[in-house]
């Protein structure tokens, strides 16, 4: 073990004296993420085009009007030009290629929501356009998600409202009053029949549901459309933004309980989109950079062979495996130092915080996995040139499949299915979880186990193959 540490000490000293590669790979994720954020996160000239969309309201109920109203909100209006239309008008607009598509709210939609039954939104896509219809479809999917969440969230208050109405209807029937009608009418009847105590009870139920769910529901509702695709962890905002959002959420819950309480357009400073894209891209780029760094550091054993120092070490009184593990440990350590500095710079730049123990553990196990994996590749390849070629190919494929270059939700389904077979995927998942959801070690257990398994398995296998290669002088 002493000799392994001697090799580690020597390699750390060498890196300290020639720090170019670690410094380049330390800065790379920040520079590259910044460029991507500049290209795609600009609020000025890089503004996304607006898509024209028709809303066909065949329902006319209160929920349908809420949907229509939501599409007219500031944030949605930034990307969507929403027009009210009848179905024939919408079809004509599509035929003349004036709109990207239409969302049809069929008759009975509000009633179905009200009754807790299956409700349906219909989307008509303009086949003459490529991207616009996708935006319409995404919008409809988001609305469906939002409504489903709201209905689940407010199930208890809705049931209580229905009970109150039923009690009121019963009293009216006994007194010969009106009953029946749609949801809009039922709200009116609730006002008529419920006494103050019942209204207060229902208000408290709504308030409790919103307060409990607000911090989960509201930020995604705000941020999904700004940067992240659904299903991807959402970057945490800065302290100021978070305070604003919390205040808005609290205000909404206190007054109306509306899920549209946080106005995205109002809370978005000039640089927020840049920051959000930057935060979103950074973990993937960091994983990619650490991977490349590990490839370079692992190849150092071949550089030592060319320099003659490897042969001299093999003639020294240490086992070949000690020599290889010493080199691997140096790679893991240098990588861990670079990862720690990345985290520090990230924290200073973005105000992002993570559980330090979990972060260090995740970074170390990731580097162990990467180092072991790269050693295995070099061991299989049987010489430096083939090893470098193989490692580069595998690295690029893993980076692509794992989401380092393109967000996974933008990739086809079969590619997303392959993502968990890459180290990049688990690194991105893990680091985003730690950075943006206040998660601890428990939240990244799967990633830790994957890294440990890959690191130990491929590390021992790679060391054995590499040893054979070095001893044979291949």
């Amino acid at each position: 073990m002493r000799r392994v540490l001697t090799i580690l000490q020597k390699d750390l000293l060498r890196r300290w004296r020639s720090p170019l590669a670690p410094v380049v790979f330390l800065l790379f994720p920040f520079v590259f993420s910044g460029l991507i954020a500049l290209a795609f996160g600009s609020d000025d000239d890089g503004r996304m085009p607006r898509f024209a969309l028709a809303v066909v309201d065949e329902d006319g109920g209160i929920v349908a009007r809420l949907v229509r109203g939501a599409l007219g909100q500031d944030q949605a209006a930034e990307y969507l030009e929403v027009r009210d239309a009848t179905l024939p008008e919408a079809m004509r607009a599509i035929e003349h290629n004036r709109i990207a598509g239409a969302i049809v709210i069929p008759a009975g939609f509000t009633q179905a929501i009200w009754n807790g039954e299956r409700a349906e939104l219909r989307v008509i896509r303009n086949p003459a356009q490529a991207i616009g219809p996708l935006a319409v479809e995404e919008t409809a999917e988001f609305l469906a998600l939002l409504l489903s969440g709201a209905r689940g969230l407010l199930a208890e208050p809705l049931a209580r409202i229905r009970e109150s109405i039923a009690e009121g209807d019963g009293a009216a029937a006994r007194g010969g009053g009106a009953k029946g009608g749609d949801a809009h009418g039922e709200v009116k009847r609730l006002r008529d029949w419920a006494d103050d105590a019942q209204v207060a009870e229902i208000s408290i139920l709504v308030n409790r549901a919103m307060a409990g769910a607000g911090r989960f529901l509201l930020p995604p509702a705000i941020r999904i459309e700004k940067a992240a695709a659904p299903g991807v962890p959402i970057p945490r905002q800065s302290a100021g933004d978070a305070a604003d959002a919390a205040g808005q959420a609290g205000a909404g819950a206190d007054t109306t309980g509306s899920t549209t309480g946080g106005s995205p357009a109002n809370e978005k400073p000039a640089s927020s989109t840049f920051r959000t894209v930057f935060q979103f891209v950074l973990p993937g780029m960091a994983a990619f950079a650490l991977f490349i760094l590990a490839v370079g550091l692992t190849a150092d054993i071949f550089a030592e062979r060319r320099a003659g120092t490897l042969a001299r070490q093999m003639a020294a009184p240490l086992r070949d495996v000690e020599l290889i593990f010493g080199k691997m440990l140096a790679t893991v350590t240098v990588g861990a130092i670079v990862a720690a500095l990345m985290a520090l710079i990230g924290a200073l730049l973005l105000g992002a915080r993570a559980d330090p123990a979990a972060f260090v553990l995740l970074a170390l196990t990731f580097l162990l996995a990467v180092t072991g994996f790269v050693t295995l590749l070099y061991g299989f390849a049987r010489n430096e040139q083939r090893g470098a070629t193989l490692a580069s190919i595998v690295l690029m494929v893993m980076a692509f499949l794992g989401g380092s270059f393109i967000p996974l939700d933008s990739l086809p389904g079969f590619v997303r299915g392959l993502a968990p077979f890459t180290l990049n995927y688990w690194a991105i998942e893990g680091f985003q979880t730690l950075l943006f959801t206040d998660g601890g070690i428990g939240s990244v257990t799967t990633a830790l186990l994957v890294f440990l398994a890959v690191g130990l398995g491929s590390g021992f296998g790679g060391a054995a193959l590499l040893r054979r290669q070095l001893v044979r002088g291949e």
Partner: protein
Amino acid sequence: MLSVQNLSRFFSGLKAVDRISLHVEPGEIYGLLGPNGAGKTTTISCVSGLLAPDEGTIELDGLALAADPIAFKQRIGIVPQENALYGDLTARENLSFWGGLAGLRGARLRERIAAVLREVGLEERAREPVRKFSGGMKRRLNLAIGMIHEPRLLLLDEPTAGIDPQARVRILDTVRGVARAGTIIVYTTHYLEEAQDLCQRIGIMDHGRILAEGTLEELKRIVGEGEILTLRGRFEPGEVEQAIAGDAGVRLVAVESGQALLATGGERGEAAALLARLLKAGLPVADISIQPPNLQSLFLKLTGRELRD
């Protein structure tokens, strides 16, 4: 004592080392002399444990390399042909690393670093990065690393290749000093003068085999009193053989590329008489050189090639 018995090593079916045996006593400098590709480095690599021999045994003071490679390697130092150094580290840091690998720690390590730096004359440059060193300084540091842990056996593989005469003298003096302290030394070179000046015994190696072995005087006796004539000219095929056909005391060593090497018997003045006969026979000799008995002539006699080949 270093004892190597019937050592063989193959590369892709070719014998790089072919049944070599040698024995070297403590304090003795044993020279392996031969041209590039003779098998010297392969022999050193096998003895140092870098390459596993295909046949044969290697023992140092009765400890077999195959039985306990780590303990065996603990007792040897190697000075490879290339300067196996870390350019980004200082001389002291290089020595500290290699000493650490050899098991030295703390005060003992510091003491040895100071001692070897003194021996090779690099105390003043100890804190400079090695990449700033001249070729000769690197060679001296390369040697110092091999000696850092005071090995029982020091293997030097052409340690003076490509350096200036001053640095060479310094290295040779250092090696002599190490030998005087009782270290067993195996020294490979293709410089005849070095082998003659430095080594108590010399093994002449070519094509993976030791062709002759002994002290310088013993080797000279193998050559005998005869001389080597090198004739240059435009010789027709078979012309030289025909010209010396009647001389029983003359042996044709080699004819190639307009050059013929002839070995004479032990009679004084025989070379001059031979030359006169050849000229009289009409052999188109343009140039001639006559060498007295030395390692070069021995090597020529044994291999038919000059050592620089």
